[in-house]
């Protein structure tokens, strides 16, 4: 079985995001960038399936600017076999990304695509679902457990009311949630080895996908600031303030 794992380069989850003064977006100059945390979980899942012998090849894919290659190197160091980089400067919306992934699926014929459930920059939570729709494949979203089941795969999904189990026919799309696994850190020897692994380059034009955005960004603003910071000295004072002053209890 062959698995495709799309990964995205995003602002590191520890970085405090700053909105640009001209309201055109957030400031990404000189900030730490990393692989989207959910995508690390996706790579880890694919690599574990390879280690368990159910998967023969793990192909990492990214779509983005030249520097996104670093993210592919991370995936390769974690254990992906090879990588594909669709080079594109500027924003890509989930629909365009999914269309390009669908083309790569046609070329690569994987049995499964494993994605993060959302990217922590645009927080859209769409790409996996769109890709399944475009391909007409089964979809298991927000997955916290994956088991093989006769001819297909059984997934546990984290839903609003608890957990749900769904059986998926192959080929399948999975989008992974935080509790599926704890991604490994790549070891130094594996980082060195990853430098020699192949990264094939492509462009959206070669894939024949129109990447023109459908959404116009009118402006990006800071959220309203909360005036916090007030302290109380005791439990009695806390209850008294909540009850008498703000009246919420």
């Amino acid at each position: 079985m062959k698995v495709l794992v799309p990964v995205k380069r995003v602002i590191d989850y520890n970085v405090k995001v700053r909105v640009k003064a001209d309201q055109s977006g957030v400031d990404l100059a000189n900030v730490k960038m990393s692989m989207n945390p959910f995508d690390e979980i996706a790579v880890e899942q694919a690599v574990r399936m390879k280690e368990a012998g159910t998967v023969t090849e793990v192909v990492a894919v990214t779509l983005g600017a030249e520097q996104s290659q670093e993210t592919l190197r991370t995936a390769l160091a974690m254990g992906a076999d090879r990588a594909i980089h669709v080079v594109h400067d500027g924003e890509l919306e989930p629909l365009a990304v999914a269309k390009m992934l669908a083309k790569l699926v046609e070329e690569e014929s994987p049995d499964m695509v494993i994605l993060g459930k959302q990217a922590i920059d645009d927080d859209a939570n769409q790409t996996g679902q769109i890709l399944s729709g475009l391909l007409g494949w089964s979809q298991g979203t927000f997955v916290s457990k994956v088991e093989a089941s006769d001819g297909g795969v059984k997934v546990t999904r984290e839903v609003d009311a608890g957990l749900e189990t769904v059986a998926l026919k192959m080929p399948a799309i999975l989008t992974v949630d935080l509790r599926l696994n704890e991604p490994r850190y790549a070891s130094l020897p594996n980082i060195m080895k990853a430098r020699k692994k192949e990264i094939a380059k492509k462009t959206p034009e070669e894939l024949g996908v129109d990447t023109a955005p459908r959404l116009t960004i009118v402006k990006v603003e800071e959220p309203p600031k909360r005036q916090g910071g007030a302290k109380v000295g005791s439990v009695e004072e806390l209850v008294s303030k909540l009850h008498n002053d703000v009246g919420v209890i």
Partner: protein
Amino acid sequence: MAILVYADHNNAELSTATLNAVTAANEMGGDVTVLVAGDGCDAVAAAAAKVAGVSKVLVAQDAALKDHLAENVAPLIAGMASGYSHIVAPATTNGKNIMPRAAALLDIQQVSDITEVVSPDTFVRPIYAGNAMATVQSTDAIKMVTVRSTSFDPAAEEGGSAAVEAVGGAADAGLSSFEGAALSDNERPELTTARVVISGGRGMQSGDNFAMLEEVADLLGAAVGASRAAVDAGYVPNDYQVGQTGKVVAPELYIAVGISGAIQHLAGMKDSKVIACINKDEEAPIFQVADLGLVADLFEAVPALKAELEKQGIQAR
């Protein structure tokens, strides 16, 4: 213009999040039609028909629709899309699962998790865990939108008298099958709609210690939530998680206990009206957003809180 709202429900009850989505749809302007897709869900359709601001209810009933499988529901939505200017769903796990798949079938770029309707084609949505708010304008012919519940008041459950119409077109795509659910049986108010929420973090140290929070919750009629760290550690089930990747809550009062206040947690609760916290580390970031911060050991402060509430005779509203 007509707007289609996908109803989230469990075949017995209409979810509150659907009421919030109806409000958002009405702000977009147009007659609101609610689609109830399920099986044995007549009660849900009847409830939807009574909601203020709903002009029509379409009910699609089929075994293939019972469990909200995206592979079966998305084609149904896509198939009826052409008569509508907008397709709207609550940003619940069902909405998030189904809508982008329907959007793919229609070649539409969905707008996720909106917090404001600026005009019929322009919406505000949080990005970067709510550290920035983007105003985006959709150029697609049909706007597909999911709605953040806490940002819109629920539409009134009574007051409407919409016609209910059965629709066909449901089919089993044969791609996936529902095997079962492990739902937390919880007698307390639902996290996303509760007036008061008390959440515990890693500082709680164990699942058993959450009993302390539950006792306070019972006195206040509150829901109990948690940080990711508390869920990851197995103290409480996943559906307790509040944050960027969990549930978004905006109660009248949010009490964070033994939670440091990471940006991913704040993303899910910083729109609460009043935030109180109990943390022994006065440097913890949660204090920066708290209106009432108490620097204390939670193992003393929480039992003391319960005792004080009892002493003052404070009861759930």
